[in-house]
């Protein structure tokens, strides 16, 4: 997929407009630019936009507070059209030609993996909000930091714990799995499958499909025919919506349905599947607007003030991007420097507070000791934390109610 010139021009135009409109207190040190490749077109364009919003809001906040260690921050975004080739070119250009001081990560493990190879080569710290697939951490890089509460492969662990903790009369007997062949989705589903099989839940069906798939109905038909108690889907938003619709069309009502991405997109998801059809659908989530995490109230209120909508409409992607900024801010204070080398050293030790909760990083950049990933369930038109019970705002609905 090529990068559309028109979209790039538009992105630049918006960037210039945003720069012109900002009213911040300049810091005492020289201003710096932070470069990011975001997906403003292609498969991840919805998520890319949310990342941009999160980063922009953080930049606005940090500049209000005097800048990053006194340096006024300007964000520079380049569209990668969700392409693994373009993302490499973008970081190369940001570092060698634009000479940005710091770089933040793009959306998805798919793009983070090639991008981090480039940023590591130039010695840049690479804090990133959305690349948590196992491959991200197994390439011997020490400059990458995944700013989420847990590594991606563990996203469905809480869900499996909950299912296996159900009373024996309610415990599901079989599960059906389908997942994109994406480094973000497949490891989650594979781990959930292994854990559920170990817990005595038989596998009724397991299918992996290419990320380019546009017609999901045949896949959904297979899941329907498996007639399992539980359905675990490794989806992005378009397929998450398509599966829900296909299950409704076929009048298939599993006792539990969880999708890796899609139902966490708030109103955007409800608009596509219909608000009444969301009831009981689950999704792993590391962040919620109600969470009592560091700076979360401020983030939510500022986000709504800047972009409109309601707290429930905020994409978790935006919170993850904002967290990247929070982590870098704290690391720069700890190191008393914004030099990449110093930041990398600082980030490998200590705990950092974010809107997603506290987190620290091991030598490969994997998050450690965080609060883990929660399970959200749509109840009464809103996604609510239902597990673990220590943070739950509501009890899980099980079995999931039938489609209306």
């Amino acid at each position, binding site marked *: 997929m090529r990068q559309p010139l028109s979209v790039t021009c538009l992105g630049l135009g918006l960037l210039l407009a945003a720069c012109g409109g900002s009213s911040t207190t300049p810091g005492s040190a020289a201003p710096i630019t932070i470069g990011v490749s975001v997906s403003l077109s292609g498969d991840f364009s919805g998520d890319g936009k949310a990342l941009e919003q999160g980063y922009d809001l953080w930049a606005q906040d940090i500049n209000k507070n005097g800048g990053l260690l006194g340096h006024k921050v300007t964000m520079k975004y380049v569209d990668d059209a969700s392409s693994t080739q373009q993302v490499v070119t973008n970081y190369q250009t940001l570092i060698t030609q634009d000479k940005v001081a710091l770089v933040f990560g793009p959306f998805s493990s798919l793009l983070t993996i090639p991008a981090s190879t480039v940023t590591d080569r130039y010695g840049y710290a690479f804090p990133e909000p959305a690349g948590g697939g196992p491959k991200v951490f197994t390439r011997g890089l020490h400059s990458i930091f995944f700013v989420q509460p847990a590594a991606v492969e563990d996203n469905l662990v809480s869900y499996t714990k909950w299912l296996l903790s159900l009373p024996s009369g309610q415990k599901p007997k079989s599960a059906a799995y389908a997942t994109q062949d994406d480094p973000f989705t497949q490891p989650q589903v594979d781990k959930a499958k292994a854990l559920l099989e170990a817990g005595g839940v038989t596998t009724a069906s397991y299918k992996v499909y290419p990320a380019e798939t546009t017609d999901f109905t045949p896949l959904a038909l297979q899941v329907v025919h498996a007639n399992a108690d539980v359905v675990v889907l490794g989806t992005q938003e378009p397929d998450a919506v398509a599966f829900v619709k296909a299950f409704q069309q*076929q009048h298939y009502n599993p006792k539990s349905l969880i999708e890796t991405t899609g139902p966490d997109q708030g109103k955007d998801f409800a608009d596509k599947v219909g608000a009444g059809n969301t009831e009981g659908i689950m999704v792993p989530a590391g962040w919620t607007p109600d969470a009592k995490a560091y700076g979360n109230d401020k983030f939510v209120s500022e986000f709504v003030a800047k972009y409109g909508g309601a707290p429930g409409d905020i994409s978790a992607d935006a919170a993850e991007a904002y967290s990247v900024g929070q982590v870098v801010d704290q690391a720069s204070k700890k190191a008393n420097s914004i030099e990449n080398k110093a930041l990398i050293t600082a980030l490998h030790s200590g705990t950092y507070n974010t809107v997603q909760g506290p987190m620290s990083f091991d030598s490969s950049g994997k998050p450690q000791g965080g609060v883990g990933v929660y399970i959200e369930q749509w109840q009464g038109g809103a996604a609510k934390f239902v597990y673990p019970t220590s943070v739950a705002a509501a009890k899980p609905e099980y079995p999931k109610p039938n489609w209306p």
Partner: protein
Amino acid sequence: MTLVLEAAALGILTGGVYALMASGLTLIFGVMRIINVGQGALVILGAYLSFAFFRSWHLDPLLTLVITMPLMFGLGVILQIVFIRPLKTDREALSVLVTYALALGIEGALGYVFTTNYVQLRAWYETASFAVFGFHITYVYVFGFLLCIAILGALFLVLYRTSFGGALRATMLNRTAAQLIGVDVDRVSAIAFGIGVATAAAGGVVFGITNAFNPGSHYDLISRLLTIIVLGGLGSLRGAIIAALIMLVTEDITAVVISPVWATFVFFVILVVVLIFRPQGLFGVRVRDRI
């Protein structure tokens, strides 16, 4: 076995929608000998136009076609006059560049107006279904298929039962000869392009009900549409319909019997085998325009 039959039925129904989208592409190639790689973007534009009317006026998506098809027809005529007609030499190669630029322009404009977030058209028939031997057939696929039959039927009537259709087929057979016998080739081309773009609007609305889409969705679409018209034979309407059905039925059956990963591969094996024995595609004619 039930699953295979269900997949085949689904393939036929969705194949109709792809046939509708590909028909415009093959018609435009047939008349003008140009490859409109912007057809996918025009399908998405059609879907967004329906989305705009659906969002603002709460119109039923299929009903919006009454407005969007004439609009898209007009747009097609204008695009042909402004971008395609000036291409006098090396039309086939230059048209690819021009229509690709058109696709990028449409994508950029849609991104600006509607943002790049995925959207989807909603209607009561998107999830409502009726049972046939235990298998639930969704109304949207049936309506899409009927729409395809109605529009392609109308297209065949225009092509074979009107004097304009005669002029159009004459232009498809031999542009120069048609000009010599008094056919206004420029006018025929503009109208044919308009019809091609109008069918994109019809395909777009069904695509928009069955799939979440964003301005970048045209890349995946155009590659599939081009494959369909190559298998069917460039310029053959009948070929486009048969090829679309072959593509979707093959892919859907492969997806359920073997794996979704093999679905496209199996279709391409069929495509390659057909092209070895019939390089002009299933219903294409060997062109000998330079003697």
